[in-house]
């Protein structure tokens, strides 16, 4: 039967043992892509979904109309958050390996997506991240200790022990709750933005999903509702090429870019170098201006690479070449912003090492503090009665009875 089959089956460019091949990634030179007015029609901006918006060139200089012309101070803040994200990720994976937390997911190689994508917004804008935007919480001021307490499900866990590690939220930081269900928050962010528009407020929503998750129905719901009501929302698809073991071709990336879905719905779709802090910042700022001007939503595809494993349960060497990440043509976002600052004369290897050491110490200190509020094995523990709360606003009779049952002895 397979011989005569006409079914097309996508295949990644390389498998374990083969040489990585990123020839399929369509590149544009830095500065080469035009920056239209935010109110231009989606139809007139279709090329943005094919080309790749890049600002930093190979000499680490910022080029072209998308250069957001940020202050040095702002660039340094961006570098700091990206590096903090990386240091945090590295250490937290280690704690998972030591059995101190049950699960972890890194964002290594994708730090610019969340950090620049958040810095380009106002603090009152609402964020709907997925599980790989830890940088957003940092930019929005979540304390490391608070994030770690969530990972530990300890007595200070913001989720009161109810969620897997990395399913953070932040009320003061305006970062929405997430769960393990992919893509569900994408159309919710559109509803949030619709409400902002109904209320006449100036705030917008920004939401992130992986390219694999764009296959879910909720991706369609989000684009459709955003288009029909011209909701002030930024819809980010983080194309890190992989969804666990599944190559982006299986989400439809073989035929067209993910940004290209936007124009079909009348929404501009921008293909952006996701490892270029400046490009991500500029594209986000452009989309934010569009939303605030009442011109509607924007779909951003952030082209990046999942340099690490999918999660602490995953081993990517089973399905892709080991040295893939090193060959990724868009480089590393931390390194690129660092080199840009060095090229500007505003940074150095020494300052970078010092910053890394400082952040590492901060993360270590925070971990130490976090563990005093309890770990999986030691120290104080959340009251199991909390299990029954927040199912409803008031505890109903049947849950009171079940709580009593629990008091009779667990297990």
């Amino acid at each position, binding site marked *: 039967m397979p011989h005569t089959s006409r079914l097309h089956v996508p295949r990644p460019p390389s498998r374990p043992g083969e040489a990585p091949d990123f020839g399929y990634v369509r590149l544009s030179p830095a500065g080469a892509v035009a920056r239209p007015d935010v109110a231009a029609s989606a139809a007139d901006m279709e090329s943005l979904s094919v080309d790749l918006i890049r600002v930093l060139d190979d000499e680490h200089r910022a080029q072209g109309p998308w250069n957001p012309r940020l202050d040095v101070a702002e660039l340094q803040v961006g570098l700091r958050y990206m590096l903090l994200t990386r240091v945090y990720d590295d250490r937290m994976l280690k704690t998972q390996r030591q059995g101190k937390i049950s699960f972890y997911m890194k964002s290594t190689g994708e730090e610019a997506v969340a950090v620049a994508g958040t810095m380009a917004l106002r603090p009152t804008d*609402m964020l709907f991240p997925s599980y790989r935007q830890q940088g957003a919480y940092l930019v929005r001021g979540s304390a490391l200790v608070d994030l770690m307490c969530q990972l530990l499900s300890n007595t200070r*866990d*913001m*989720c*009161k022990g*109810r*969620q897997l590690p990395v*399913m953070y*939220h932040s*009320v003061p930081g305006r970062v*929405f*709750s997430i*769960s393990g*269900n992919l893509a*569900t*928050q*994408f*159309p*919710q*962010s*559109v*509803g*949030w*933005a*619709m*409400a*902002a528009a*109904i*209320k006449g407020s100036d705030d917008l*929503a920004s939401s992130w999903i992986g390219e694999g998750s764009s296959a879910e*129905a*909720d991706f*369609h*719901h*989000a684009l*459709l*509702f955003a288009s*029909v*009501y011209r909701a002030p929302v930024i819809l980010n698809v983080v194309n890190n090429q992989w969804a666990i073991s599944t190559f982006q071709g299986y989400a439809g990336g073989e035929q067209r870019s993910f940004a290209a879905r936007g124009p079909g719905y009348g929404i501009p779709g921008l293909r952006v170098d996701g490892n270029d802090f400046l490009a991500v910042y500029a594209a986000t700022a452009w989309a934010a201006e569009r939303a605030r001007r009442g011109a509607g939503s924007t779909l951003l595809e952030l082209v990046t690479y999942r340099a690490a494993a999918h999660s602490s349960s995953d081993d990517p060497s089973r399905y892709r070449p080991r040295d893939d990440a090193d060959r990724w043509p868009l480089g590393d976002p931390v390194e690129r912003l660092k080199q840009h600052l060095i090229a500007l004369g505003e940074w150095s290897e020494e300052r970078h090492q010092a910053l890394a050491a400082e952040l590492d110490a901060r993360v270590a200190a925070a971990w130490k503090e976090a563990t005093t509020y309890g770990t999986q094995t030691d120290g104080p523990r959340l009251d199991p009665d909390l299990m029954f*709360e*927040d*199912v*409803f*606003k008031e505890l*109903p*009779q*049947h849950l009171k009875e079940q709580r009593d049952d629990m008091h009779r002895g667990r297990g």
Partner: protein
Amino acid sequence: MAQMNMIQALNAAMDITMTRDPSVVVLGEDVGYFGGVFRVTDGLQRKYGVHRVLDTPIAEGGIIAASIGMAVNGLRPVAEIQFADYIYPGYDQIVSELARLRYRSAGAFSAPVTIRTPCGGGIRGGQTHSQSPEALFAHVCGIKVVMPSNPYDAKGLLIASIEDDDPVLFLEPKRLYNGPFDGDPNKPAVPWSTHPKGEVPDGHYHVPLGKAEVIREGNALTIIAYGTMVHVAEAAARSLSLDAEIIDVRSIVPLDVETLCRSVAKTGRCVIAHEATRFSGFGAELTATIQERCFWQLEAPIQRVCGYDTPYPHAFEWEYFPGTQRVARALAAVMEAR
């Protein structure tokens, strides 16, 4: 007090909450300009404008998702799903998101969304306009489930639902929109104006969620029903001249176990009736709970009268529908058992 049918009562509930609270918005397929295929939202868009009464794309999943987002941003959406049979494309957003948001965020976020949807059979609607999916939501922790059986309760429960801070699935037995129905399609239609529960106060009031109503006291046995089946139960008890106690559950989640068990403990006999299919239906939960708590008072096995375990068949509606005689048969069996 005014005479209202259930459509008018539901419309009044939305009208009143929209007037009192500018954060209440209504959305759904055909609900705006047209006023809904059952006219339940008639006039609301004219009165409150196109930004508070929104026509939507035909995407139930999108409607629920957008409602959640709106609610998180401070609105109180009342979403209509055109028929309960079409709620399943929104099932993931209800089960995985709406019902769990408060829990998973430890109260940081919540979404007070009311989902209204016409349910039930008896209108020759065939398999996709007749379903009663309450059990598929009752098993999901974190969402309340309500079904009125008359205009008075419909208005009071809908106001209470919209004003409740938890999400509520509000099931409207469409066979009752225009009048009570006792299960006999050959009898002339009766309007709500002939029924005491068609008298509906003009203003704001609540029928509290979580409270069943004993609509008829009696000692011989307890009949537990909700929605259209309340009226069928009454007719069945009447047809046998039984001194039945009849309870309208009204609130499926949370369930008023106390009222139900107090009655069964008194009568010792119980029949449960619903339109939904029997297997793993909500009648099973009612039966299980009552037998756990009233075992020593029970004088006969609890009987369920339900829709048969098939899709709703267009041409066999009146063989399928658990009507007066089928309920009466169960009543007789439970009374005979000893």
